[in-house]
């Protein structure tokens, strides 16, 4: 297939044909979406092990929260296409979350009981 024809087909079909999953510079013979799905599954199993099997320490909860945020970011970045679309869409997620985090922080510093 000539380069011109390949480029024309890429534009027509609206996507890149070489969408193989790459990790740490290595290319795997599966779509990016499938690679992300496998990572999400592995991280979920690790989270479950942290919660149910591995004895809990001081870092367990922060680690689980970081893993959860990482999984959410993977979905937003690859599946919701923020890696290709305008970054302004990210504001729709970030601004409300920041507002609610500030509100939650305010709520936690209010005394629980009146004396």
């Amino acid at each position: 297939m000539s380069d011109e024809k390949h480029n024309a087909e890429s534009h027509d079909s609206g996507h890149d044909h070489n969408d193989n999953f790459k990790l740490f510079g290595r290319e795997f013979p599966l779509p990016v979406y499938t690679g992300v799905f496998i990572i999400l599954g592995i991280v979920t199993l690790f989270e479950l092990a942290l919660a149910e099997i591995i004895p809990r320490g001081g870092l367990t909860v922060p680690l689980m929260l970081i893993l959860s945020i990482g999984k959410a970011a993977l979905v937003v970045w690859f599946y919701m296409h923020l890696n290709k679309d305008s970054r302004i869409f990210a504001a729709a997620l970030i601004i409300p979350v920041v507002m609610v985090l500030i509100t939650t922080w305010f709520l936690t510093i209010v005394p629980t009981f009146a004396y």
Partner: protein
Amino acid sequence: MTDMSLEKAPVAAEAAHGHGHDHFAERSNNLKLAMWLLLASEVVIFATIISVYVVFRVGPDGSKVVEQVHEIIREWPGIWLVTINTFLLLTSSWCMVMGLREIQRDNRQGLIRWIMATAVLGIVFVALQYVEYTELSHNGIALFNQGNELDGFGMRFYAPTAFHGAHVIVGVLWALFVAWNAKRGNYSAKNYAGVEVFGLYWHFVDVVWIVLFTVIYLV
């Protein structure tokens, strides 16, 4: 520097190469912006009800109550039921995005297959959530537990998870609508904005569950 203009959207760039497809690109960008704005309002609602749970969880009584509830959940229905549900939603998100990939390759039958798989996984998720709710209520975790040791937990648990379940039900209906539209030939490699916008909604529902699974069931 980050480009903040809507013109960066690939659909617009690609369609600009074709002739007479500008309206598709514009429609696609408008639909996506509208969906992201809807999702922004959804983020506020979900974040608020999740933060209500978190404030209760870190409070003096909340920690003891949540530990008791986790013990009940471990006996039955068990954390495995919720884990299966988590994998169902992760898989459904993967199916959704593979469906989008198929229509970008102009394969409508592929899109229909993947979207139907998405819908089926969503239905199973809701069914298992019903089983979970039934078992939890039989074990004393109700909306209101006034006077007993689980007081205050029920509403803070059921509100975010049920609100999320309602979103899954809406998503399943929407998936069936997308499959029906695909069957009628309304999508192609040059016109798949409807599929993309549904995908944004469905992946958002997945993102919310990722957070709920950790915050409510694991932590």
